[in-house]
C-alpha cells in the first residue's frame, strides 16, 4: 500500500508542470504559480461559459426589451453594453471559449505538421532538408499577421460562421507557426541522430521509421511544452489581431475579443471606455498567464537562468536524497534515453 502510494507520489512529482513548480524557488515559483492560476481561470471560464455568462454572446434583448447601445456599466449590465447593443460581460466570457478552441486547433495542427516535417527533414537530411529550411526561414522572417491575413482570405474569403471562423483563424495561425516547431524539432533531431543509442538501433537493424518515431521523436520533443505555451499566447494575439482587422468571426456566430476592440475604436474617442477596456484586459490577462507559465518553464530549463536554492535551504534536500525516494532538485534522469525507453 505504501509502495503504491510512494509510486503515485513519484509519478505525480514527475509530471511536467508539477515537477517545475517543485523545482522553482522564490520569485520564479511566484511567477509560475501566478501564470498557472491565470491560465486555470481562463480555461475554466471557457469551459463553463454558458453557466457564467448572464446573456448569450449575440443576445440583443431579454424579457424587458432591447439592451440598448453603449449603456454604461452597472445595474442589469455589470460591464455595460457595446455599440452594437451586446452585453460586454457576456461577450468577454464567451470570447474565452473562442480563444481556447482556436488555440487548441491551431497548436495541434502546427505541432503535428511541424514535428513531422522537422523529424523527416532533420533525420533524412539531403536536398529535402535544405529546401524545407529555406522555406521555413523565409516564412519565419515574414510578419506573422500579414501572412495570417493572406491565409484567412484564402480560407474563408474573409468572413464565416462559427466553426468556419474558428478553423480559418486556426489554420491561418498554423501556417505561420509551423516553421517554429519545424526549426526546434529539426535542430534536436540533427543533434540526436548522432547519439550512440541511435547508432546502436541502426546496427541492430531497426527500420528508419522506427528509429525516427521511437528513438529520435521521444527525445526530440522535450522542448515542446515550452514552445507550446509560448505559441499559444502568440496565437491569441494573432487571433485578436485578425479580429481587429475585421477577419474574425461574425458577432452573431461567436464572441471574439479582437472584433469587439475594433468596434470600440470610435467609442474611445467619445470617452466610452468599457467597450474596449474589458475585452482588452481579457486578452492581456490570458496572454500574461500563458506567457508567465512559458517563461518560467524556459528559465527552469536553462541552467544559466535558473534560480538556485540557497545553501541553508538545500540541507533537507540532502537528507531526503539519501533515502532514494524522490529527487527534489535536478531530475536529470528524465532526459536519459535509456530511462525514457523503459
Amino acid at each position: 500500500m505504501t509502495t503504491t502510494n510512494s509510486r503515485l507520489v513519484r509519478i505525480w512529482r514527475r509530471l511536467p508542470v508539477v515537477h517545475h513548480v517543485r523545482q522553482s524557488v522564490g520569485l520564479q515559483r511566484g511567477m509560475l504559480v501566478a501564470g498557472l492560476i491565470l491560465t486555470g481561470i481562463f480555461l475554466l471560464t471557457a469551459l463553463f461559459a454558458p453557466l457564467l455568462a448572464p446573456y448569450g454572446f449575440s443576445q440583443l434583448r431579454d424579457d424587458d426589451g432591447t439592451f440598448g447601445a453603449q449603456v454604461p456599466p452597472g445595474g442589469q449590465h455589470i460591464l455595460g453594453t457595446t455599440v452594437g447593443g451586446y452585453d460586454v460581460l457576456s461577450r468577454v466570457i464567451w470570447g474565452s471559449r473562442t480563444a481556447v478552441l482556436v488555440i487548441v486547433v491551431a497548436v495541434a495542427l502546427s505541432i503535428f505538421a511541424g514535428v513531422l516535417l522537422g523529424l523527416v527533414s532533420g533525420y533524412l537530411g539531403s536536398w529535402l532538408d535544405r529546401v524545407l529550411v529555406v522555406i521555413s526561414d523565409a516564412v519565419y522572417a515574414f510578419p506573422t499577421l500579414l501572412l495570417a491575413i493572406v491565409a484567412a482570405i484564402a480560407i474563408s474569403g474573409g468572413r464565416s460562421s462559427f466553426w468556419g471562423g474558428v478553423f480559418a483563424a486556426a489554420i491561418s495561425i498554423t501556417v505561420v507557426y509551423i516553421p517554429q516547431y519545424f526549426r526546434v524539432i529539426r535542430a534536436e533531431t540533427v543533434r540526436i541522430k548522432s547519439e550512440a543509442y541511435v547508432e546502436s538501433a541502426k546496427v541492430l537493424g531497426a527500420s528508419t521509421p522506427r528509429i525516427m518515431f521511437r528513438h529520435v521523436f521521444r527525445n526530440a520533443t522535450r522542448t515542446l511544452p515550452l514552445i507550446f505555451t509560448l505559441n499559444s499566447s502568440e496565437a491569441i494575439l494573432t487571433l485578436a489581431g485578425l479580429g481587429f482587422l475585421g477577419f474574425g468571426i461574425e458577432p452573431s456566430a461567436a464572441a471574439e475579443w479582437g472584433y469587439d476592440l475594433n468596434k470600440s475604436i470610435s467609442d474611445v474617442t467619445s470617452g466610452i471606455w468599457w467597450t474596449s477596456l474589458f475585452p482588452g484586459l481579457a486578452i492581456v490577462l490570458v496572454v500574461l498567464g500563458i506567457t508567465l507559465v512559458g517563461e518560467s518553464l524556459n528559465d527552469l530549463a536553462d541552467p544559466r537562468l535558473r534560480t538556485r536554492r540557497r545553501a541553508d535551504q538545500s540541507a533537507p534536500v540532502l537528507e531526503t536524497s539519501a533515502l532514494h525516494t524522490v529527487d527534489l532538485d535536478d531530475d536529470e534522469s528524465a532526459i536519459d534515453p535509456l530511462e525514457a525507453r523503459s
Partner: protein
Amino acid sequence: MSQSAPAVINPAQSPTPTRRFRGITNPLARFLIVRFLLIFPTVFILVTMVFVLMRSIGDPITAALGGRLTAAQLAERISSAGYDRPILVQYFEYLGQIFTGNFGTAITDGRPVSELLVTYGSATLELASYAILVALIFGIPLGMVAAYFRDKWPDAVLRVAAILAYATPVFFAGLLLKLVFAVWLKVLPVAGRASTRTELQLTSMDDPSGIYLIDAVRLGSPAAIGDVLSHAVLPGLALGLLTAGIFMRLVRTNVIGSLSMDYVDAARSRGVSEFRLVRKHAYKPALIPIITVIGLQIALLLGGAVLTETTFEWKGLGFKLVEYLGARDFVAVQGIVVLLAVIVALTNFIVDIIAAIIDPRVRY
C-alpha cells in the same frame, strides 16, 4: 552516408552556397555575396506562397466587384485583365512584374501599388522609426537595471512589466493611451499624423520627403514640429513598448550571461564595482544580439504597424492595406504584402551585414 556522419553543427560548413565562393578570399565580401543571393529565394518563396493562397479563392475581379457588375461585364473585365488565362502563365507573368518593380494595380481605385509605397511608405517608416527609438530608450537601460538587480524586486517588477508589454496587443495599448492622454487628459491629439493645417503646409511644400518630422524641420516652423511630434507620441509609444519589452529581456539575459564570463570575473577580482561591471564590461557584448534582433523585429514592427495605423488613423501602408481588405481589393492586398516581403528581406540583409561588420564571429 550522411546519416552516420556525426552531425556537428559547424557554421563554416553548414550553409551550402559558401562552397561556390571559396575563390573570394575576403571573408566579409564572401559573406556579403552569399547573404545577398539568399534574398532571392526568400522573396521568391513568399511571393509564390502569397500568390497561391490569394488565387486559391478565384479571380480577384469577382471578389472585388462581384455584386456590382453583371455577369457579362465581369467576364469582360476578367478577360481584359488576363485572369482567364492558365494560372501558370499568370504566375510567371506576375514573377516577371515583381522583378521589374511592378507590384500590380489596385482594382478599386486603379492606383499602382508601387506608387502607394512612395505616398504611404514614408508614413510607415516614420512610425517604425519612432517605435524603434522608444524601444531602445526604454529597453536597453531597463535591461541593464534588471541584470544589475538580478532576482531582487526591481528585476521582478521589470520582468513582469516586460511580459505585460508583450501580452498587451498594440491596438489595445493604443486605445488605452488614446483614452487616457487624448480623451481624458486632452494633452495629446486623438489620431492622425498632424493637424489639418500643418498637414496642408507640409504637403504643399516643394519636394516633400513624406516623413513629416523632416519636412517640418525643413519648413523651419516650431509650431509644425511641435504638432508633428505631439501626434507621434502615442502611436510611437504603443508600437515601441512592445519591442522595448523584448529588448529589455534580451539585454538582461545577455548581461547576466556575460557577467559570468572570465574577463568579468578578472575585472571583479581587481576590485571593479558591480555597477561598473554592468555598465562598462558586460553590456557591450550584450548589445550585439540587439542588432540581430532589430532585424527580426522589423517583421514584428510591420505587423504591429498595420494594427497601430488602424488604431490611430495613421495613413501609412498598413492603414491602406486594411482599407483595401475592407474593399476586398485582393490585387492591392497581394501587392502590398509582397512589397512588404521585399522590404523585410532587404532590411534583414542590411541588418545582417551591419552585424557581420561589428562582430566577425557571425560571418559564416
